[in-house]
């Protein structure tokens, strides 16, 4: 771990998002901290050090604002979905961040005021396992306040329906009032995923894969779906960190393609073929975690 994602380092962060829907979820950029190249033993020895940033936010889908049940009257309840995103923010943790964008966050329940809203995100992993992610602001029942609640239910289909059982209570659940984001961290192990796994939308209710359910009329005598996204793009879990290096005569474009050896501390080494002609060469390295890449170059002299 070379950096810790904190507010103090947010100034280094990429601001990611798209257009009007941009918000301030931060992902640190990947940086090549050190890069060296030297001729040795008939080859060009390359070494370096990388600080990998997380995957940038992947927009999986959007939902029109204001299309929820109840219009302006219910929007302040947090029911109006606007988008769905997933990303892997910290390469040092095998955890995906599921983010639900809403027009307005639900209010924090007051003492004696029942919480009525639950966010549900139903998805499959590799088309073989089915999951329902449930998030609530407090899971309050009047005088009984909890912190934000998130749980992952595994769902098993049957001949006539399905059963979803709570598998894990999620510890990282956050409601971000400044940017209208509800998010929960789910580890790959918790959802039975691995690098390269594909997370796809799953419409188990017939109304959408991502939906806001709430008791209707304030009487909790009916659970109604207030807004739903019918589906979203699939998300592929990044394969992980990688560093590729290449060499080209100085002034020419380098196309890094040679895979470097990366250790647990993100130090990398590689051996490039020694150019046959003497001169100044540029060695380039490209380090990536998912789509968060950085490049660095260094010159090396090849003697006659």
């Amino acid at each position, binding site marked *: 771990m070379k950096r810790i994602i904190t507010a103090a380092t947010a100034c280094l962060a990429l601001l990611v998002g798209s257009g009007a829907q941009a918000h301030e979820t931060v992902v640190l950029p990947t940086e090549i901290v050190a890069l060296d190249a030297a001729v040795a033993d008939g080859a060009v020895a390359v070494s370096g050090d990388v600080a990998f940033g997380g995957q940038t936010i992947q927009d999986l889908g959007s939902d029109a604002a204001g299309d929820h049940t109840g219009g302006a009257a219910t929007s302040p309840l947090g029911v109006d979905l606007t988008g769905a995103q997933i990303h892997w923010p910290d390469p040092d943790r095998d955890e995906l961040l599921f983010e639900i964008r809403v027009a307005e966050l639900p209010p924090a329940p007051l003492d004696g005021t029942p*919480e009525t809203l639950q966010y549900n995100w139903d998805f499959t992993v590799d088309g073989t396992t089915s999951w329902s992610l449930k998030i609530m602001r407090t899971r309050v*029942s009047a005088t009984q306040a909890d912190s934000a609640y998130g749980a992952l239910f595994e769902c098993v289909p049957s001949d006539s329906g399905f059963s979803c059982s709570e598998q894990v209570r999620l510890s990282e659940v956050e409601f971000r009032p400044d940017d209208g984001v509800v998010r929960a961290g789910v580890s790959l192990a918790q959802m039975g995923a691995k690098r390269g796994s594909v997370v796809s939308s799953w419409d188990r209710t017939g109304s959408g894969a991502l939906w806001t359910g709430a008791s209707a009329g304030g009487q909790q005598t*009916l659970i109604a779906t207030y807004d739903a996204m019918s589906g979203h793009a699939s998300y592929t879990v990044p394969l992980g960190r990688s560093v590729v290096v290449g060499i080209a005569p100085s002034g020419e474009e380098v196309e890094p393609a040679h895979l470097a050896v990366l250790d647990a501390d993100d130090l990398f080494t590689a051996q490039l073929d020694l150019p046959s002609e003497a001169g100044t060469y540029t060695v380039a390295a490209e380090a990536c975690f998912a789509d968060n890449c950085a490049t660095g170059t260094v010159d090396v002299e090849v003697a006659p």
Partner: protein
Amino acid sequence: MRRALVALIAAALAAAVLPAASMAAPVAVASKHMEWVAGLPTLTGSSMGFFEREVDGAVRRYAAVGVMGYGVELVDITDPSSPTTVGRHISPGVSYHTDVHVNTARDILVMNVDRVPLTNVGLSVNQGLGPGVEFVDIADLSAPETLGVVPGLEGPHKLALIGDDHVYTTLPTYIIDYTDAEQPENLGYAEPFLCGHGISVDPTDPTIAYVAGCQPRNFYVVDVSDPARPRIRSEHQDVDIQTPHDAIVTADSSVLAISDLRGDYFNTQCPGGGIHFFDIGGDHIVGASPDNPRKLGTWFAPYTGARNDPNASDPHGSCTLHGFQLNPERLLLTSSNYMAGGWLVDVAAQTAPEGFYEEYRAEPGTGLGPTSWANTMGNWLSPGDLSFYLRWAPFDDPVYERTVFSISPTQGFEVLRYTGPLPEKISDLTVERSAPDGAVSGRLGRYPLLTDQGRTSKPLAGEQVSVSSGGTTVEAATDAAGRFVADLSLGSGSHQVEVTWEGDEDFRAESRTATVVSP
């Protein structure tokens, strides 16, 4: 409207102070294997609970009957053929759908004063006089006394007692702590998705409750280990359940039954909704559990209405499944189907190709057509009935083995007798996981019955059980507490053990396979 309301309330209260009158035996519109025993027609109601008392050295049994309009009648049913009102509680509120429960350990009657469904105006009295839950001291049956009332619960429709000190309401679900029944505390809403019509606690694991959800198709398994903070631990969906109504588990926690109030009160096509059965014990489908219920099948009442046409509206009105209950010791349920009357159903096995209601098989799609699990054993339909609930009285007395109690807004309180074949009882055979000194131990007992101390599991003493492991079988006798110890001289480690009991004339044979660990 208000004047009419007052008149209705006055009429209800006037009825309450009159002695309950018995009635002549009605002629059944339809019946098989059931006969009418007695009735109290003025006790038009919607629910009942039971309790037992020792009075002057003799055991007496009672039904607390929720009466539409004014409260509860306490009826002595020690002799089921002669039910007699011995006490009465006039509730400060009035109710369409009184749900009555008795906390037998505390001698407290818990009843609701519910909201009147807007659609049922005309059938009921609009209350507004104290909607909520009422706690009544019934230590003195002749003078029940209100201990406390929790108002402001949006007219609770039904109640579920969770442990000895909490009650959940439904539609919506509030949590009430009545540790101090004189000052019961409203803890507020349960979480919003704990929403449904019927809640019941697992009879062998009181940390689990089952909820028939308020959405089509849904039901839930809820962790109630902390009754003040119930938590949904799994949710389930079955596409065939249109209107989940009640969720009840067999005495041995092997089968979960979910009823379907298909079409609601206004459904006029018989048979309407059915009961959907799920294996939750793994007895029928490997891997089935409370959180992984596996569908066994569905039962529908083999009744197609006065016109004998499942596709036609019945002129008599409501025809769907309203309430049901499971026998305390048998895999036998009672079903109440509004104007289709009451039914007895053996839920031990899938529907047999031939049965007592074979005549309905002649018309595909009528009654037995969609039925795939359970076998209908008997029925009773009184003229003008609107059967709300049939109940077994869970007392340890043979007089109740064939007796069911019916409550109806039109017929009142009735006592019926089942005359058909009676399935054997099931017994509670348990095996200890630990086998100290290589000896396997366990207990053979009955599933809990109602006593004056609450629900009690009585032992089956003096019975022989066979305990086998690794080719060795040892016979052991149960002691006065139902316990047995079989010295198999098991070596250190885990062992697969099978315990069997051959049963007797009342109880069916039982067998349990368990892994035990010998230190």
